[in-house]
C-alpha cells in the first residue's frame, strides 16, 4: 500500500534502471531506444494519472502524497513523455549518448517528482539537486558548437551559487525553527519572518527556487542554456522543469504568506522586473530559443503574480497557469524541434515559409504563440486573466496594470514569430513531413489549448482542490 503511494517515483526509478542498462550497450540503437523510452514514459504518465487520487505520507512525514503533488507528477510525466515523443530526431545529441539522454531526463523527472512531494527542507534540497544535476549534465551534451559547454558551465555555476545561497538560507531557517520539516516550520513562520535573520533566511532559500523558475535576478542562465542546450533538452527545461519549479515555489512561497506587506512587495517587485525585463529583452532576440528563454523569464513573473496573492484563488490560478504553460510552451517547442530537425539553433527568421512547408505545424505554432501571448480563446488567455483576477482581488492594481501592459509588449515578439512563419516566403525549402504520431500530437495539443481555454472550469476546480491540500 505504501509502495503504491510511491508508485510513480518507483516506476520512474525502474525506467531509469532500464535506460541505464541501455546506456551500457556498446552500439547504440537509436530507434529502439526512442521507442522503448517513449512507451515507458507513456506508461509512466498513465501510472502517474492513475495515482492522482492517492493521499498519504511517507518516509516519516518527509514526503507527502496529495492531490497537489500528484497533479504535478502527472504533469511532469506528461512533459517527459511529450519530450520523448519529439525526440525521434535527436540530432542535437550524438547517437551513442541517446540512452544517456533518456536516462538523465528520467532521473531529472524523478528528482522533480520527489521535489513536488517533499515537505522536508533537506529532501527538497537533494531532490532539487538531483533534477538540476541531470540537467547540468544534459546541457553540455550537445553535439557541435562550443556554446553548449559555455551554457553548461554558466548553468552549473549560477545553479551552484544559487543552491549555495539556498543552503545558507536554509541553515538560518533551521537555526531559527530547529526543524527541517515544513509541517513544523509553517506554524513558526510568522515569528520567523518577524525576525530579520529569519526573513533573510527565507529570502536566501528562495534564491534556489527562483533559480529553477528563472525569476529575476536568478534568470541569467536561462537565455544561455536555452540557446546552448540541445533542442529537446531545452524543451524539457522549458516545460516540465518549469512546472516543477512553480510547484516548488508555490510550496515555499506559501511559507511567506504571513510575512505581511513587505515580503509581498518584494515579490511584487521581482515579479514586475521579471516580466518587464523578460519581455523587453525578448523583443530584440533573433534566436528563437533565446527569445523563448526571455519569454519564460517573463512568464515566471506572471506566475509570481498568482503566488503572491497568497490565497487559494491565487495559487489555483498559478497551478492552472503552470499546467497551461507546460502545454503551450511545449507546443511551440515541438514546432521548433520539427523545423530544426538537424538539431541546430533556430533563428526566428528560419521559420520562414512554415505555412507552406507544413500548415499543420504553422497552425500549432500560431495557437501556441497566441496562447503564450495570452490571446483568447486559449489556455494562456484564461490563465493570465485568472492570475490577474486573483491578484486584483488582493488589491494589486499596479501589478495587474503592469502585467497587462507587459502582455502587449510581449505580443510584439510573439507576432514576429507568426510573421516569420506566415509571411516570409521560404524559397526552396522542402515541405516538412510529419509522422502520424506527431500529427496526432499536433491535433491533441491544439485541441487542448483551445478547449481548456474556452472551458477551463474542470481544470480550475482541480487546481483549487489541489491547492486546498497544500494550504
Amino acid at each position: 500500500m505504501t509502495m503504491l503511494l510511491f508508485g510513480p517515483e518507483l516506476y520512474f526509478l525502474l525506467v531509469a534502471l532500464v535506460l541505464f542498462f541501455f546506456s551500457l550497450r556498446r552500439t547504440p540503437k537509436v530507434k529502439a531506444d526512442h521507442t522503448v523510452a517513449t512507451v515507458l514514459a507513456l506508461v509512466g504518465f498513465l501510472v502517474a494519472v492513475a495515482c492522482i487520487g492517492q493521499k498519504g505520507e511517507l518516509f516519516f512525514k518527509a514526503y507527502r502524497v496529495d492531490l497537489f503533488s500528484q497533479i504535478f507528477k502527472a504533469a511532469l510525466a506528461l512533459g517527459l513523455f511529450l519530450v520523448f515523443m519529439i525526440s525521434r530526431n535527436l540530432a542535437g545529441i550524438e547517437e551513442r549518448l541517446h540512452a544517456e539522454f533518456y536516462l538523465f531526463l528520467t532521473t531529472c523527472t524523478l528528482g522533480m517528482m520527489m521535489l513536488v512531494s517533499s515537505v522536508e527542507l533537506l529532501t527538497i534540497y537533494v531532490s532539487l539537486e538531483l533534477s538540476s544535476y541531470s540537467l547540468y549534465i544534459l546541457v553540455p551534451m550537445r553535439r557541435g558548437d562550443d556554446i553548449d559547454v559555455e551554457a553548461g558551465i554558466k548553468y552549473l555555476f549560477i545553479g551552484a551559487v544559487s543552491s549555495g545561497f539556498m543552503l545558507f538560507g536554509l541553515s538560518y531557517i533551521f537555526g531559527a525553527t530547529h526543524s527541517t520539516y515544513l509541517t513544523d516550520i509553517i506554524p513558526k513562520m510568522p515569528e520567523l519572518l518577524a525576525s530579520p535573520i529569519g526573513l533573510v533566511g527565507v529570502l536566501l532559500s528562495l534564491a534556489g527556487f527562483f533559480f529553477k523558475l528563472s525569476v529575476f535576478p536568478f534568470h541569467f542562465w536561462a537565455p544561455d542554456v536555452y540557446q546552448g542546450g540541445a533542442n529537446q533538452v531545452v524543451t524539457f527545461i522549458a516545460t516540465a522543469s518549469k512546472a516543477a519549479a512553480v510547484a516548488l515555489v508555490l510550496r515555499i512561497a506559501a511559507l511567506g504568506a504571513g510575512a505581511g506587506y513587505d515580503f509581498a512587495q518584494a515579490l511584487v517587485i521581482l515579479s514586475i522586473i521579471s516580466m518587464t525585463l523578460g519581455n523587453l529583452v525578448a523583443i530584440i532576440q533573433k534566436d528563437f530559443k533565446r527569445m523563448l528563454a526571455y519569454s519564460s523569464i517573463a512568464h515566471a513573473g506572471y506566475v509570481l503574480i498568482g503566488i503572491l496573492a497568497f490565497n487559494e484563488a491565487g495559487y489555483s490560478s498559478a497551478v492552472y497557469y503552470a499546467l497551461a504553460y507546460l502545454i503551450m510552451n511545449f507546443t511551440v517547442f515541438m514546432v521548433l524541434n520539427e523545423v530544426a530537425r538537424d538539431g541546430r539553433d533556430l533563428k526566428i527568421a528560419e521559420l520562414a515559409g512554415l505555412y507552406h512547408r507544413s500548415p499543420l505545424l504553422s497552425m500549432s505554432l500560431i495557437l501556441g504563440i497566441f496562447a503564450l501571448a495570452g490571446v483568447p480563446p486559449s489556455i494562456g488567455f484564461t490563465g493570465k486573466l485568472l492570475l490577474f483576477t486573483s491578484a486584483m482581488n488582493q488589491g494589486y492594481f499596479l501589478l495587474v496594470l503592469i502585467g497587462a501592459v507587459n502582455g502587449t509588449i510581449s505580443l510584439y515578439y510573439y507576432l514576429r514569430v507568426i510573421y516569420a512563419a506566415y509571411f516570409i516566403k521560404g524559397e526552396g525549402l522542402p515541405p516538412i513531413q510529419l509522422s502520424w504520431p506527431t500529427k496526432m500530437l499536433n491535433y491533441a495539443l491544439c485541441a487542448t489549448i483551445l478547449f481548456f481555454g474556452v472551458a477551463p472550469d474542470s481544470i480550475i476546480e482541480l487546481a483549487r482542490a489541489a491547492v486546498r491540500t497544500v494550504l
Partner: protein
Amino acid sequence: MTEHLASFPYLSCMLLSPVVGLFILLFLKEHQRLAIRMVSLVAAGISFGLSIYTFVSYDKALGGLQFVEKYQWVKAFGITYFVGVEGMNAPLLLLTGIVIFTGVLTMWELQERVKEYFIFQLALVTGVFGVFMSYDMFFFFLFYEIAVVPMYILILIWGSTRKIYAAMKLTLYLMAGSGLIIPGILLLYSSSGLFTFNMLQLHAVQFSPWVQKLTFVLMYLGFGVLAGVWPFHTWSPVGHVAAPTAVSMLHAGVLMKLGSFAILRVAMYLCPQGFQYWAQFMGLLAATGIVYGVFVGLAQTDLKYVIGYSSVSHMGIVGLGLATGTVDGLNGAVFQMFAHGVMTALFFSAVGYIYDRTHTRDIHELGGFSKIMPVASAFFITAALCGAGVPGMASFWAELLVLIAAVKVFPIRGLFAIASLVIGALFALRVVQNTFFNEPNPKFTHFEDVSPFLGLPRMILIGFLIFFGLFPQVMVSMIKSSIVPFIQGM
C-alpha cells in the same frame, strides 16, 4: 433590467454559425475554392439572417433584455455565458451581419490563400458578434480580443501598402488598449465583492467614486484606442490602408464600433460617476477628433487614408454623442455607429474594387473613374456624400442627434463639430472630384465595371443606408428603447 429568456438559442446560433463554418473550412482543401466561398457565405448568411430576425422581432414595447441565454461557465470565478439583445446592441448585431455578409461577397474574387482567409475572417466575426451580445465581462473581453487579434494575420498576408508595419502597429496598439482594459475590468470585479462578471449584477453595485473614476478612464482609454479616439487614432488610417478590402470593411465598419460600444456598455454603464467625472474630457477629445480628422484627411492622397481619417472624424461624432450622456446624444451615437459602419463598409468596398484592378489608390493617379466604371464610382460617391452628411442617408440623422445634444451640453465643442462639417464636405468632394471626375487616366480605361453579382453587396449596403435615412424612426425607436432605461439607471 428585465431579462426574457430565449425560446430558441438564436444568439448562440448567430455566434456559432461562423465557428461551425470555420471548422468546416478547416477540412476543405485550398483548391475547393467554390466550396470554401459557399461555406463562408452560408455561415455569414445565417448570422446575417438571424441578426435581421432579432432586430425585427425584438419587442420594443416589452423592452429589457431579450433572447437571453445564460449558462454557468466557471463557477469559481463567477463567469457565466450570458448573452442577450436589447435596443442598443441589436443595431450593431445587424451591422455586423450586414458587413460580414457583404464582406464575404466582396472578397469573392480572392485568389490567394482563400481557405485561410475565410477562416480568420470568420474567427474575427465570431469575436465581434460575441462582444455585441455578451453581458458577462469575461466573455465580453474574451470576444473583444478574439476580434482584434486575427487582424494581424489578415493584414499581414492579404494586405498591401506597408502592411508589416501596419499590422504590427495596429495589433500592438489595440492590445495596449487591452492592457488598460484588463485592470479596469478586474478592478470592478474585485471591488464589487460579488465574485461575478455579470454586468447586470455589477451594475447594481455602487462602486466608490475613485474606483469609478479610475476604472472609467482606464476603460475609456483602452476601448478608446479601438474606437479611434483622438489622439489614439493613428493606427486606424495605417491599418485601413494596409488591410484587404473586406477586412477594412469589417475593421472600420464594425471593429471600431466595438470600442465605442464597449465604452457605452461597460464603462458608462458600470461607472456612471466615473463617466460624469470624465465627460468633459471625453467631449474634448471627441470634438478634437472630429475637427482633426477632416483637416488631416484634406491633405491625404491615398484613398484609403482619406477614408481612414474620415473615420476618425466620424468616430469623434460617436464619442461626442457618448460624452453628452443624454438620451439624444446616446441615440445619435449608437445610430452613428451603425450608419458609419455601413457607410465605411461601402467606402472600402468601392475602393477595394477599384484597387483590385488598378493597384493604385493615389487620387492623383486615378481620375475620371466615373467614365470607366460608372457603377463602382456611384457606390463610392454615395458613400462620400453620406460621409459629408448629406441628408437622406442614415448618418445625417445620427449626426443631427449628436450635434444637437452636444451643443446643449458642450456649446463650444458642439460648434466646432458642426463647423467641421464644411471641411468634411470639402474633404469628401475633393476626393470624389479627383478620383472620379475629370479626364480618365488612359492606363485604366480598359477595366470593366462592377458586375451585377459583385455589385450586390454594395447595393445591400446602400440599401441599408438609404432605408434608415428615410425611416430613421425604425432605428431610433429601437435604440431609444434601451437608452432611456440606460440613462435612468445611471
